[in-house]
């Protein structure tokens, strides 16, 4: 009895973890804001120390860092470089595209790790 209880628990955790990682990836790509709210809801359902908690926190961290790195830095570039300078846009668009992509690729890896119930670092096999 106990055993099936824990395995049910694990299954739920795995599901939460992959949903969290998916929400994080969606927030970075085609469904911003809404996905972040969903991610926060998933986070609220999780317990510290569990894998779903880990992935919810990771997702929140990735997205907050991405928001800062993308919007804050881009805004700074525009403010400092001037809205009407072509060079501002050279930097902003190139920077935004490549950095955004790096975050997306990172979130894809996180998603894959959540599917196998792993943390980013812990060794699989």
């Amino acid at each position, binding site marked *: 009895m106990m055993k099936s209880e824990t395995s049910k628990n694990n299954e739920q955790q795995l599901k939460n973890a992959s949903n969290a990682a998916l929400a994080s990836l969606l927030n970075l790509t085609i469904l911003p804001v809404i996905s972040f709210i969903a991610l926060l809801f998933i986070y609220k359902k999780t317990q510290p120390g569990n894998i779903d908690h880990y992935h919810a926190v990771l997702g929140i961290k990735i997205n907050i860092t991405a928001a800062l790195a993308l919007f804050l830095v881009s805004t700074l570039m525009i403010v400092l470089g001037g809205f009407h300078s*072509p*060079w501002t*846009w*050279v*930097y902003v*668009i*190139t920077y935004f*595209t*490549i950095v*955004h*992509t790096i975050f997306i*690729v990172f979130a*894809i*890896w996180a*998603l*894959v*790790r959540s*599917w*196998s119930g*792993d943390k980013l670092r812990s060794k*699989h*096999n």
Partner: protein
Amino acid sequence: MKYQSQSIAKLYFIAAIGLFVGQILFGVTLGLQYVIGDFLFPEIPFNVARMVHTNLLIVWLLFGFMGSAYYLVPEESERELYAPWLAKLMFWIFLIAGALTILGYLMVPYATLAEITMNDLLPTMGREFLEQPTITKIGIVIVALAFLFNIGMTILTGRKTVISLVLLTGLIGLAVFFLFSFYNPDNVVMDKYFWWFVVHLWVEGVWELIMAAMLAYVLIKVTGVDREVIEKWLYIIIAMALISGLIGTGHHFFWIGAPDYWQWLGSIFSAIEPIPFFMMTLFAFNVVNKRRRDHPNKAAVLWALGTAVMAFLGAGVWGFLHTLAPVNFYTHGTQITAAHGHMAFYGAYVMVILTMISYSMPLMRGKQAGNARAQVIEMWSFWLMTVAMVFITLFLTGAGILQVYLQRYSDTPLGFMATQDKLEIFYWAREGAGVIFLIGLFLYIYSFFAKGEDVVMPEAAVAS
């Protein structure tokens, strides 16, 4: 290597790498001509060097695809190649035809080449990527048919796997769409349609099937993950590729005189095109994460992962960047296009062939994997070429944005050449990155000759 006839791939791969070197030498020549306008003029004018650069690319990718198929198909079909002699014969025909064509570009003016190859009888020359004389095009068709017959018979009389069938479908598509290059209507709008039916339906359609099949094959081999898992992914990837890619052709019909609705159709469907590339990244990451063994060929795993990521970047992200009609209105035909063209071709098709070569070449030379030192050198070459390509892309993107602003967006637009003068710094930087790329390529070739100790894997890791 389980079947003797697989080793025919080696011939194809050696030729592919040789032509790759030629392609890059002309690339850095072009890059220099961008900043030193009369460099090598009149011996090798820019337009000729450009044609040689792009044609060598296409030809060596075709060598790479054929070599990969000759390696992959016997093993998947669990039998020897149907007609190994035919594969060898076609190799020499293709190589000689290819070499003669390139020499033709370099030795005589293009108009003269058209004349001596009797282009008038069936005019097909003059369109980018498809500049080959008609006679060469006919040669390509013959080689392609013999090739399809050979691997088709091998597949049909052997074990049929999802991988080999997807590969075959892609290769048949490649040959069929090439036939559009024989139709050269006078009406320029029609002409553009048919040109894109080759170029776009290749790289954003059937070539994606070839790529997905080859990537799946190598991933099964190096990770030991179950075929069933991989096959499910393949189905979704190819379905997404075809659904988005076919109507996505419309992103080339925005400004050529085609009906307006293409702006909607092209924008919407091509906006979905990044998905198959995204799925390939997800797929490759997933399979490597779930691997059941550590393969001694670390370099091949690196190439496979690199392909998945760089194809997503070059095709998916840099494609999406300029694919919506309101954006493309400004960026059409600028350096943004060149930035995307470079990273997409490199990230998807160059890298997937290098992945196949990396995996199969040691096996054809009687080893599981290259020796430790060779692999380190190969991985260095991976990083040099890949990072150099990222920088080429970034510099061209910067150049493209400035170009759009100065020439098309500004209230007081500059002329084309006045704008080009302002982009010089980017072109120098691109040339620098190009030289790094060339160094990476030389290192890559050196890795095949480097001596060192064999990689021995702990028994358990290999067996499981």
